């Protein structure tokens, strides 16, 4: 059973992320040497099993995900996932001289991990602030494979899903941020959003 989120709660959470990734976008712009905008047009909370469909993916689609384990108030993993083609688009946008047609070297992969690291850190900061707790992170890694396999490796049953749009050098690249949370963590997050809303409305 997924936790029931109202549209208002989802919008509030998405807005929190929007604010959170703003700083990451600024950092990224500095690194890339061009304006980078990050936005979260949509947020959903879904059952892990339904996550793929929400990503618009088939189980066998090739994907590329930066996985960021985190701890603190609770332990889990966050991931930033792209279809393989989009991942190349993103890397090509940030390090244009190092990406051949469909092959990425280790160095280029490092760049992708760093971008994911940055974005996920920003998201976790936003979550942490909402929950009023500190979330620590461990070293991120890159996972490639079929979409179903990649998700299978993740723990947790409910997934908070953010559609994240990277606008880099006139190019829009879709990515998806997923937080896998257990029901307890998800409940806490919902509670926190509820508190935030009642405090501000």
């Amino acid at each position, binding site marked *: 059973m997924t936790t029931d989120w109202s549209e208002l709660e989802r919008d509030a959470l998405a807005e929190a992320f929007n604010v959170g990734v703003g700083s990451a976008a600024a950092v990224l712009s500095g690194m890339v040497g061009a304006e980078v905008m990050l936005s979260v047009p949509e947020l959903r909370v879904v059952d892990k099993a339904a996550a793929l469909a929400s990503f618009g993916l088939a189980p066998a689609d090739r994907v590329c995900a930066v996985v960021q384990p985190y701890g603190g108030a609770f332990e889990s993993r966050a991931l930033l996932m792209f279809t393989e083609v989009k991942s190349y688009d993103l890397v090509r946008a940030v390090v244009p001289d190092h990406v051949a047609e469909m092959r990425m070297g280790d160095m*280029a992969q490092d760049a992708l991990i760093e971008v994911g690291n940055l974005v996920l850190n920003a998201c976790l900061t936003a979550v942490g602030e909402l929950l009023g707790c500190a979330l620590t992170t461990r070293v991120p890694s890159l996972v490639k494979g079929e979409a179903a396999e990649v998700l299978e490796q993740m723990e947790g049953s409910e997934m908070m899903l953010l559609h994240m749009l990277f606008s880099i050098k006139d190019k829009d690249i879709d990515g998806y941020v997923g937080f896998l949370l257990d029901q307890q963590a998800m409940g806490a997050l919902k509670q926190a959003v509820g508190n935030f809303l009642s405090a501000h409305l």
Partner: protein
Amino acid sequence: MQSAVRNPDLSSRLAAAALEQAMTGQVVFDRELRVLVWNGWMVKTAGIAREAALGRRLDDIFPELQGSYLLSVLEQVVSQGRSFLLSSMLHKELFPLWLTLSGGRRELLRQQICALPLDQGEEGMFGMVQIVDVTQAARRESAMYEAEQRLRTLIDNMPDLVLFKDGEGRWVEANHAAQQIFDVSQGSYRGQTDQELASSNPAQAYILDLFRKTDLQAWESGQVVRADEILQAEDGRELVFDTIKAPIFHGDGSRRGLVIIGRDVTDRKQAERDLALAKQVFQHSTESIIVTDRHNCIISVNPAFVQTTGYTPEDVIGQKPSILRSGAHDSHFYAAMWATILNKGSWSGEIIDRRKDGSTYPKWLSISAVRGKDGEIENFIALFSDISERKAVEQRIRYLAEHDFLTGLPNRVLLTDRVSQAITFARRNRKRLAVMFLDLDRFKSINDTLGHNVGDDLLRVVTNRLLGQVRASDTVSRLGGDEFVLLLLEVEGEDSVAHLARNILGALVEPVRVGGHELNVSGSIGVAMYPEHGQDIDSLMKNADTAMYQAKAAGRNGYAFFSPEMDVAARSRHEVENALRHALLRKEFVLHYQPQADVADGQVVALEALLRWKRPGFGLVPPNDFIPVAEESGLIVPITEWILDEVCRQLRHWRDAGMVHVPVAINLSPVQFRREGLYEIAMEKVKEYGLQPGDIEFEITENVLMLNTDAVMRTLDRLRAAGFHLIIDDFGTGYSSLSYLKRFPVVKLKIDRSFVRDVSDDPDDAAIAGAIIGMARSLKLGVVAEGVEKSEQLDFLRQERCKSMQGYLLSRPLPPDELEAALRQGLRLVPEVPEPSGGGD
């Protein structure tokens, strides 16, 4: 190992030693970024001794870090417990660590940095940085990238299509040419099979499908397959690709990939086809072809050349085309020809050359200079055809166009030309000339009776006789049919022309023997003189024609000079003809009926239908004034049809009214027999009105019998067999012959009125009439005397036992209603009531 596990102190010392020896930079720092651990790699790479580093803030050791992103990251590590991965890919400046290259140059070390928190619980939060030297890896990757880019650039710039598919047929690489030809976009094709690409681009489905066939061949054979593939250009043109498909296998024999290289050979194929076609044309051309080199030495000739000139290739190759010269043209001619070829690139014209056997022939020759890309002449090509036949044909065509094929005389085309020339000449030299129209009398009858071959032979005889009468400078031409026109130049006056006309008529009346027949021919001649009868060709021709008609009307076998009065007459005849054409439509014709009676008992035994024309403004036109015109114009045919219909209709009407149980006679013109269908129409009408053929009698003149053709015979036989009665009209005026009376299926004779008129006074006429009546009786034929007006005539007929009579003595021709009235009043022949004066039909 075990001792170390049990000895924590040893374990941490070993850990410290390992850290010291690590191949990566290892730095541990506290919340204030003060260095706590500084391993050997750092000492060596940063050039800073451990003692110099320990306890110092990192941004103190490396002042370059102040305000840097790296520094902020390090701060986040210890303040928030976050882990980071930083790469030189995204950061120009991380730790200011340098690599010394040969020659003393320095280069920033490329780094991969991992910064992570070390949470030591109560002892606090520490941070750790691991620095990996990725300079070599970055170089390798960069080199690989560049190599790949070079390779990519190479294959993309190949004009050939290059395609690599994996073992499952998925596209891995396709260069620009391949992407273009298969209409796939960069990046979108990867990982797709042909089928998948086809489904997103149906226009290519057919092509991809075809293309895959040879893929399968390559896989199945395990060998390189080469084939011509048909692909499609963007504009829809079909392109031919010479394609090589090489299958590559893994060590275990499984499929690894398929390398496909294709070259567009469309142009080459087309060129090959063109060349093959050109060769065919060269070989099979009916035109002779000579190809020479730039020095005009023959290098090739085609079979047509051999056939035309008689020279074999061996005879002429290496020679100059001048060996063909006949000597008919001088050197200036050839000089001018070559000047044109060199200046304008080609020359064509008629030339006379000599064959190998020495004979000369005219030919139409075209010579072209062939220039190479540099504009220099490389070859000359000469094409020619022997035009001797064509010239002969041209002459023949011209002759045929200007001459009558039957007689060889000039036709209208040439005559017109000669007359206009003659007029021009006569006008300039104040001379006179004559145009003479000659028409053979009754030629149509001869043609119809004896057949066209006899008619044609007759025309040839006439031609020779005409030619025998004129001077060489005069022209005898035939316009068609039996119409001849003579153009007589520089004539003295009408007397000399009249003299010639008489001579011609005299020559014509000599009996002609053709096809076993002896024919008596005569002609009618009309003459128009320049300048008095016409100043131009049209009026001269028309007026001569008019005069000829006049001569014919005047009794044939004569000549007439044109006069203005004739013109008027001709015009009125024309008007009559025109009016006649409309008379049928306007229902201006009526029929009158004249009864015939039995001489012995006075009973009416038959009626003769007689045509009358109520021409508006002219009253009742006498038959003699329009029947000849109707016959000449052919209008007699539809008129006769109308008569048939009208008679049948009238008779039906009478029969229905219970009267007129006798047959009705209809006159048939000889013209009627030239057309098919008389029998059919007669049968149709009789049936239509529910009558019997025996109700109709057809009166024909002896002329018709004299036609004596199969067609006439057949028609008469069929009419008779069907039950129609056939009567010979005007008997005694023609070539009355007993033999044809036997041969033809006639039932009755009609004695011409000219014999009946004077039977009571003229013993000769009485003898003739009596002989006819007697002959008819002995041949068991009926006999009718027409034009009986007086009782003396009737007495004679009674005496001679003539069967029946027709004439005013009985009744004049009557309109149907008057006839009905007369019949109701019991019309019959009453000898005591003579009604003299006037004539019947």
